[in-house]
């Protein structure tokens, strides 16, 4: 695996391999010394052109716990402010000799474009409405931890699917691992066309609530408010929010998930966020080992084609 740009580049077997590797790194998180020398001497640049707290911190910790050196770069305090182009910025960073660039950008497709401008491995930490593959991996890992596997599980993704890179990555990863995905939300917040998406659509959360294994709530982005897409928060909460009443109808072994940051009282009521079925903090905790697995696969073993068992290839040894 040279880069991680999209879950769409991953086969079900790739996903399973990454989740296996995640379990190895999760064990390291339980030790007193939460660090291994696997990526000693490697340099990882965090290029965040869009704000982020949890993803950046999580990648940062993941790289450090692999003993890589980390340089953080955020658009607000760099030459981007002076009008430097994305290409110049990236070429400048990679001229300094880095092994991986973890990139977040408000425009879809930026990570893939970057691969043309740098020899470093590129890891997508979220691009526009497109993809957020490490979020999908940590969501899969969290569900797998609770249920053993995703096979046959019923998962509802509820909310603003259209503007959500988390939803696009999750739908792809969940269904590849055998789960059944239902999208729930107002028509205005679902993609205009779902042709080819392996999902069902339900306009009403209450009609599916009772037989879900997982209810995955998306963050309502405040900037969509007041527009024609979303008239009022109160109306949204009444129809799609995970309120206490809805929580009572959820199965006792179901999971409540959210990519964060949560809008308590909008898509999720405080009672639901603090319920024992809510695994939001498990999701955050899974972020570090998942990103260690991704960094290790991309920089540690990226130059090897692991699926190819063809004899005769030479490896320096």
């Amino acid at each position, binding site marked *: 695996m040279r880069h991680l740009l999209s879950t769409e580049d991953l086969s079900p077997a790739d996903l399973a391999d990454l989740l296996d*590797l995640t*379990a*190895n790194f999760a*064990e*390291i998180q339980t*030790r*007193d*010394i939460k*660090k*291994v*020398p*696997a*990526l000693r001497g490697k340099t990882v640049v965090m290029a965040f052109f869009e704000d982020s707290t949890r993803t950046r911190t999580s990648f940062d910790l993941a790289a450090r716990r*692999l003993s890589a050196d980390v340089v953080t770069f955020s658009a607000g305090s760099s030459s981007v402010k002076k009008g430097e182009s994305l290409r110049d910025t990236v070429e400048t960073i990679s001229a300094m000799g880095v092994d991986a660039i973890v990139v977040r950008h408000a425009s879809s497709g930026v990570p893939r474009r970057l691969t043309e401008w740098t020899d470093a491995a590129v890891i997508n930490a979220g691009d526009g409405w497109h993809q957020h593959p490490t979020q999908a991996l940590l969501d899969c890992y969290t569900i797998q931890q609770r249920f053993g596997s995703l096979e046959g599980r019923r998962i509802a993704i509820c909310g603003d699917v259209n503007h959500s890179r988390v939803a696009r990555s999750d739908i792809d990863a969940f269904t590849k691992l055998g789960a059944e995905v239902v999208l729930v939300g107002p028509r205005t917040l679902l993609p205009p066309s779902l042709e080819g998406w392996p999902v069902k659509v339900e306009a009403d959360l209450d009609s599916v609530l009772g037989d879900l294994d997982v209810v995955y709530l998306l963050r309502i982005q405040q900037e969509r408010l007041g527009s024609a897409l979303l008239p009022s928060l109160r109306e949204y909460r009444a129809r799609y929010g995970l309120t206490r009443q809805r929580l009572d109808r959820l199965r006792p072994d179901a999971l409540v998930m959210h990519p964060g940051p949560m809008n308590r009282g909008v898509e999720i009521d405080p009672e639901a966020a603090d319920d024992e079925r809510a695994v939001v903090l498990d999701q955050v905790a899974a972020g570090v080992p998942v990103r260690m697995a991704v960094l*290790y696969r991309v920089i*540690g*073993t990226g*130059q*090897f084609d*692991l699926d190819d*068992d*063809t*004899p*005769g*290839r*030479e*490896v*320096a*040894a």
Partner: protein
Amino acid sequence: MAERERRRTPPYGGVFVPRSIVLDAAAVDRAVRRMAHEVVERNQGLDDVVIIGLQTGGVPFADALGAALLQIENVEVPVGRLDVAFYRDDINLRPVLPEASTEVPFDITRKVVVLVDDVLFTGRTIRAALDAIMDQGRPRAIQLAVMVDRGHRELPIRPDYVGKNLPTRRDEAVNATLDGVELGEVTRQV
């Protein structure tokens, strides 16, 4: 060498072809018992002794050593398992991936750790294991038990307990399990 690693190291997809049987299952069993007695003798009992088997080849021998110690001394010695992939020195030379999980559910600080592996060859796995153990705590001592010492060390590492000293050529391969020890070679699958 464990199966997953063998598939990904030259010759790719190679298979182990045995040429001669060095020890049969009964002889392996006797060697494990002898090593267990040596562990007791060397440490004057089993106070503070813990066993850690290296994934994946060393794990069955670690379990067998623990069982033998229980039989001899009637003491249940804690047995853990360690995967050293992330500590290896060849991470950028070949696709190093963990074979299995690390499970050391006890504190090793101030303990005598008996590290167990199936075959001692270059010593590089043991070097990685020493670093991995140090990250788990500060043992009073680390001792090394191997079923087979086949020579060709590349590092100043020597075993404390040896099941069988087996002179080999570098290009030969040794397969050591509880069912027996075989000498042969890994050849490309046809």
